[in-house]
């Protein structure tokens, strides 16, 4: 694995390696010394052309826990606002010898452009590009689902566990959501069944070809209760067209209301409530749902750091494989 651009490219084995490694990274967070020396002397650049707090902080803390040096770059207050191109920005960073570039950009495909154009030599991690993909979010969702599965099935550990047979319902703005896309590819690769629930106006063209079921009614999707229901954020910044009549109607039809949570409780379901954050309370998710014991929102944030540590570690170790190693010990050391 050289870059992490999309979960569509991840094989089953690669995904499980990332998750198994992330489990061990999570254990570091429990220790008194919350730091590993694995990336000492390496430089990770956070290149954020789009606003983000939690993803950037999560990547920053992941890189710091691995002892890497972190440079934060956001488009606001940088030369990008003076009209510098992605290529020039990237080459400037390469000249500062960055080993990994974490990029978020509003244009779908810009991480791929950065990885394949030969502008820079560093490993590229996609931290969200347009409406394309957000692979580390999908990986942290898979990690959370795996923990939920181990908990409900009474397993001791999650090592090597996949999502075979789990049913995940993803609700909301699938049209604009890169999280929904990344989740779909990764969760189905790991064996889960995915159902999308959305108003017809918020579904992309060509969804019929995706390996998922599409339902327009949330109540229908929640009966029988799935293993997890993930509420996507209503992206107000992208709602420049009228996709639904009013916020109240959206909340009533597609929001996780207290009544729907009560119905899950009455059915005795083990359904986990997930949200990638930041939450619009009262719109796609009610406070009753967000604060219920079913909610895994804070687990997701915690797992986010572990998954990103795992990805940075796996991308940056072994990258000197081309250089000749000690010929006396080609294998064992």
């Amino acid at each position, binding site marked *: 694995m050289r870059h992490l651009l999309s979960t569509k490219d991840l094989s089953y084995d690669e995904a499980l*390696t990332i998750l*198994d*490694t992330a*489990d*061990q*990274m999570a*254990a570091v967070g429990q*220790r*008194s*010394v919350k*730091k*590993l*020396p*694995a990336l000492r002397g390496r430089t990770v650049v956070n290149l954020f052309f789009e606003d983000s707090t939690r993803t950037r902080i999560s990547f920053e803390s992941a890189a710091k826990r*691995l002892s890497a040096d972190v440079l934060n770059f956001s488009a606001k207050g940088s030369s990008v606002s003076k009209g510098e191109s992605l290529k020039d920005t990237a080459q400037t960073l390469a000249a500062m010898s960055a080993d990994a570039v974490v990029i978020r950009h509003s244009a779908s495909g810009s991480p791929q452009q950065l990885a394949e154009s030969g502008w820079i030599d560093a490993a590229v991690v996609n931290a969200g590009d347009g409406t394309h993909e957000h692979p580390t979010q999908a990986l942290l969702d898979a990690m959370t689902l795996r923990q939920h599965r181990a908990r409900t099935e009474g397993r001791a*550990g999650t*090592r090597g566990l996949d999502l075979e047979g789990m049913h995940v319902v993803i609700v909301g703005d699938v049209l604009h959501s890169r999280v929904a896309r990344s989740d779909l590819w990764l969760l189905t690769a790991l064996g889960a069944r995915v159902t999308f629930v959305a108003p017809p106006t918020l579904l992309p063209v060509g969804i019929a070809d995706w390996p998922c079921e599409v339902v327009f009614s949330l109540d229908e999707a929640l009966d029988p209760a799935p293993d997890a229901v993930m509420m996507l954020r209503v992206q107000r910044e992208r709602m420049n067209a009228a996709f639904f009549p009013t916020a109240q109607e959206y909340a009533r039809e597609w929001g996780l209301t207290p009544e729907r949570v009560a119905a899950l409780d009455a059915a005795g379901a083990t359904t986990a409530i997930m949200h990638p954050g930041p939450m619009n309370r009262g719109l796609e998710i009610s406070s009753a749902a967000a604060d219920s014991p079913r909610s895994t929102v804070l687990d997701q944030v915690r797992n986010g750091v572990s998954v990103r540590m795992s990805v940075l*570690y*796996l991308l*940056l*170790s*072994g*990258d*000197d*494989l081309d*250089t000749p*190693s000690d010929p*006396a*010990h080609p*294998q*064992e*050391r």
Partner: protein
Amino acid sequence: MNDDTSTAGPPTGPATARVILSAADIDRALTRIAHEILESNKGSSDLVLLGIPRRGYPLAQRIAEKIAATDPDFDPAASTGQLDVTMFRDDLRKNPARTPQPTRIPVQGIDGRTVVLVDDVLYSGRTVRAALDALVDVGRPRVVRLAVLVDRGHRELPIRADHVGKNLPTSSQEKVRVRLAETDPDPRAAEHADCVVIEAPARAAGA
């Protein structure tokens, strides 16, 4: 030791493989190591055995059982753990990434106690150096000692073992494989359920 390189077939597979220690030999060596540990620690108080994944951990468990057989005050389950050293290695940039193994430290911790690191093969000493670094992040033991099943020489760092099952002079071209029933379940003859094997390098044709 590095676990990913030791996954080749059973000892009877390649013609150049020699069995050096059988299951009975390994058992005797571990019994002696257990007694040596008790002797040097003057008893079993404050003793913690930490195995280095993967084969060091089952060896640490076996040594703990043997210590418990001698000293009934010793609780093997509460005094044995596993210490993963993957993230502390000095060759992370040169080798493909490995999945780290869990680190399990006994609940009483290691502060002020005697920690015995247990591994299968001592070779360059780099794994042990990484283990010493990993240990610093867990706590501050009073003493750290090293027990290994096989010392094959070729040290690259000033590190030595306190308790050695077998000193095995080898050529650096050879490979020393430790196979344990817990970690290598591929079928073998009963007397070789656990064994130590030396594999000579395959000779290139015409060389």
